[in-house]
């Protein structure tokens, strides 16, 4: 078999592998949802476990190695043997890039020119160096650029909710307008289709919607559409994971070898190379750029090139990864400078606390949290109430796209701890349910100028009704008030017990005021911060509960002593 024919088979094997990993990604993404047993689907963080960039930067930033991420060493091993085959064969974002390139091919294209290496391809290495330097001093921003974070973040925030919105909105408008031709109703077709999608694709889950999703989607669209300018633009110029794997593939075992005297410099191979790895230049092939896609071998009509296994010791080519000491130093300084930039804010130095920054249960102390968070959005996809949202600037630029609980959108479900289960880096610690139920995310505060029983002399108590802790953190004291027409009525006025409130936010979520709820949760009293504690309570550090005879009664106020029930 000629090298060309063998290579054609290998190219098809690669395409199948790529499709398989893309489907694996889509399946794991789809399967990442609450299940009846309350456990996350196994393997939902698979792509982060095999991601050496996430492992390395998290380790540098937090000085902690997450055991599960050691699987990334397997990816490192593939780079040492096969070069950047991970980019060409495995990475689902790379596969999407390939697909877009293919879609963008013009039918009657002008003869494609050779697409050769340019010095701009070094930029991804500088980005990697900057991220690593930043991480060394304790800031984790790899998630902004990590391909798997980008993929999960975009699919979570925009692609899946967008798909669900399209299908639901289309079916619903047909349902309500009910167009028909005699006895034939369009709904006879749309409703079964809609039910099918609800039951099998969206699993009866309410549609999620995310703050800032348009920006996340636009960035993704830009990354993907740049393929129309240069094939796999992102992977060539920007991807820090690609840079890490490239740095590891300087002397791969599998390398492109030229057959003596066969090449006639036709340049066909270079037109098929998505990586601009210069396969057309004998002795100057760039292993750090090559995705081992085999397109070049399959393109060559003279069997002049082929991938062969050789000893890794001699350099495979004279085209070395030459980044330049000054440039590398500059990139490192830029990374460290970026960290300082992040920290030049009172909040970053814990001088103030953002009342809106309600972190998921089990989230570490803010600094440690952002040192681990990959901004991947797995927790947001898993959150059953849609309460976990990507931050804008609430956590500073450093904490961009990290999870924050926005109770008006969704509350923290009392019997759920999925976010901690799925977090690949344990930025959100996996708390057992009983411990999670005692973890305070913040504290609810009444706005007595808006609350119906306080401000408008009306019964309400929806917040009390929904409060999940037992005994409830919201309790009511009956008060006699005089109405406008002089009548005296008894109204149950609600209050919050700071000892019991865990800041889950369901009270804020269900408040009749939808614009600015009359009860709101702020981050005060959150368990993770000893300094963001306003209220002296048994739960805060350094304080002890008073003996029970002098302490405020913590017993169930609605039990035997129920002041308005029972008789």
């Amino acid at each position, binding site marked *: 078999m000629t090298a060309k024919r063998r290579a054609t088979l290998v190219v098809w094997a690669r395409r199948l592998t790529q499709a398989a990993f893309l489907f694996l990604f889509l399946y794991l993404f789809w399967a990442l949802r*609450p*299940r*009846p047993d309350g456990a996350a689907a196994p393997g939902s963080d698979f792509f982060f476990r095999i991601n050496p960039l996430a492992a390395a930067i998290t380790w540098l930033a937090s000085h902690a190695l997450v055991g599960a991420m050691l699987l990334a060493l397997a990816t490192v091993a593939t780079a040492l043997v096969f070069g950047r085959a991970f980019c060409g064969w495995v990475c689902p974002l790379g596969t999407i890039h390939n697909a877009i390139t293919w879609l963008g091919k013009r039918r009657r294209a002008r003869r494609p020119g050779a697409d050769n290496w340019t010095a701009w391809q070094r930029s991804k290495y500088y980005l990697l160096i900057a991220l690593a330097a930043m991480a060394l001093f304790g800031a984790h921003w790899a998630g902004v650029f990590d391909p798997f974070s980008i993929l999960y973040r975009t699919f979570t925030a925009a692609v899946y909710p967008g798909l669900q919105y399209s299908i*639901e909105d289309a079916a*619903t408008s047909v*349902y309500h307008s009910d167009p028909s031709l005699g006895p034939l109703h369009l709904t006879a077709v749309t409703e079964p289709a809609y039910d099918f999608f*609800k039951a099998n694709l969206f*699993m*009866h*889950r*309410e549609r999620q919607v995310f703050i800032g999703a348009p920006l996340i989607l636009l960035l993704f669209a830009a990354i993907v559409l740049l393929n129309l300018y240069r094939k796999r633009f992102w992977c060539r110029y920007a991807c820090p994971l690609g840079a890490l794997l490239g740095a590891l593939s300087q002397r791969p075992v599998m390398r492109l070898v030229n057959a003596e005297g066969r090449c006639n410099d036709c340049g066909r191979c270079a037109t098929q190379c998505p990586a601009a790895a210069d396969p057309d230049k004998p002795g100057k092939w760039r292993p750090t750029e090559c995705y081992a896609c085999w397109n070049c071998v399959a393109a060559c009509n003279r069997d002049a090139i082929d991938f062969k296994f050789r000893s890794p010791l001699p350099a495979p080519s004279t085209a070395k990864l030459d980044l330049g000491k000054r440039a590398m130093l500059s990139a490192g300084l830029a990374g460290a400078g970026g960290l300082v930039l992040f920290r030049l804010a009172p909040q970053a130095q814990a001088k103030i606390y953002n009342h809106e920054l309600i972190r998921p249960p089990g989230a570490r102390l803010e600094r440690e949290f952002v040192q681990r968070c990959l901004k991947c959005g797995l927790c947001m996809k898993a959150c*059953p*109430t849609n309460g976990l949202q990507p931050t804008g600037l609430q956590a500073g630029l450093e904490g961009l796209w990290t999870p924050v609980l926005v109770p008006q959108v969704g509350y923290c*479900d*009392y*019997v*759920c701890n999925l976010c901690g289960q799925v977090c690949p880096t344990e930025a959100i610690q996996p708390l057992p349910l009983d411990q999670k139920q005692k973890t305070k995310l913040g504290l609810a505060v009444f706005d007595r100028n808006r609350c*119906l029983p306080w401000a408008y002399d*009306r*019964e*309400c*108590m*929806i917040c*009390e*009704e*929904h*409060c*999940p*802790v*037992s*005994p*409830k953190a919201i309790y*009511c004291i009956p008060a006699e008030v005089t109405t406008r027409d002089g009548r005296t009525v008894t109204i*149950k006025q609600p209050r919050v017990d700071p000892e019991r409130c865990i800041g889950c936010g369901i009270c804020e979520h*269900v408040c*009749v005021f*939808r614009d600015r709820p009359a009860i709101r949760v702020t981050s005060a009293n959150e368990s993770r911060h000893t300094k963001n504690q306003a209220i002296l309570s048994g739960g805060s550090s350094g304080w002890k509960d008073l003996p029970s005879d002098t302490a405020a009664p913590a017993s*169930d106020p*609605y*039990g035997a002593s*129920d002041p*308005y*029930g*029972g*008789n």
Partner: protein
Amino acid sequence: MARQTRRDFLKRTALTGGALALGPFSSTLAQDASPADMCIARFKEVDTKSSEAVKNMAVKLTEQAMANIGGMGRFVKKGDVVWVKPNIAWNRAPELAANTNPDVVATLVRLCFDAGAKTVKVGDNPCHKANETYAASGIAAAAEAAGAEVVYLDKTRFKEMPIQGKRLEKWLVYPEIAEADFVLNCPVLKHHQLSKMTACMKNYMGVVGEPRGQWHQDLDNCLSDITGFMKPSMCVLDAVRIMTGSGPTGGDLANVEFKNTIAAGTDIIALDALGAKLLGHKPADIGTVAAGQAAGLGKMDYHSLALKEVEVS
């Protein structure tokens, strides 16, 4: 007068005609010559620590309560579409009594099919997220195993319907429920801070859409209005386990008490009055019950009805 859909009208006309045609034979079709209007079934002795025993109790109580009010066939006709409406409000396990007992629901589904129902749907508009709540309550699995279609209400499908009550002129109601031939309201009995208790009337908050929370500002009249709109012909009250405090969410076994009781009856006010008593209240002290009686929806003095109290073992 009752609002009826065209389907109701046609069906009733046909049934009335059929019944007239059958004439003297029709009475022999009934299971019992004179079924009770309400039955309170209590279990004699049960080991509440054994989940098997509790399940057995729930099934038997449901069967007995139904049998003594004339069987499900009195309310469900052959080919009917039945909507079983339990309380599936909270993401809580069955042991916490925050939702209707799943075995009660499954038994009712089975009885509906036995009575000839074509389709039995089970669903509620939960306070927590439906997907998690249906699963945690155990009701989705139990109802599906009994052959019911578990329906997740679609927030986009509520339709404004004329309630024409004292307080509610119109409201968003779930059409699939309103259009069912028979809606079987089967709540669990619980403590509720505002209305003191939640039972049958309050369970109808699960057939309407947002912003239903506003109803808390006049719960008595709103619940009377929706009950008048739904016109229940029969309800089942699950008091196998009841929630005595921190209602309606509970979350602590200390708030759960075994009453080993299930009541079924044609008078929703009478059933809620019984619920009030089981929770230690005077029925007249419960605003919704008093308002319901004043609106002519039923009688809180259930002893004045044809009442059967049975001991089950």
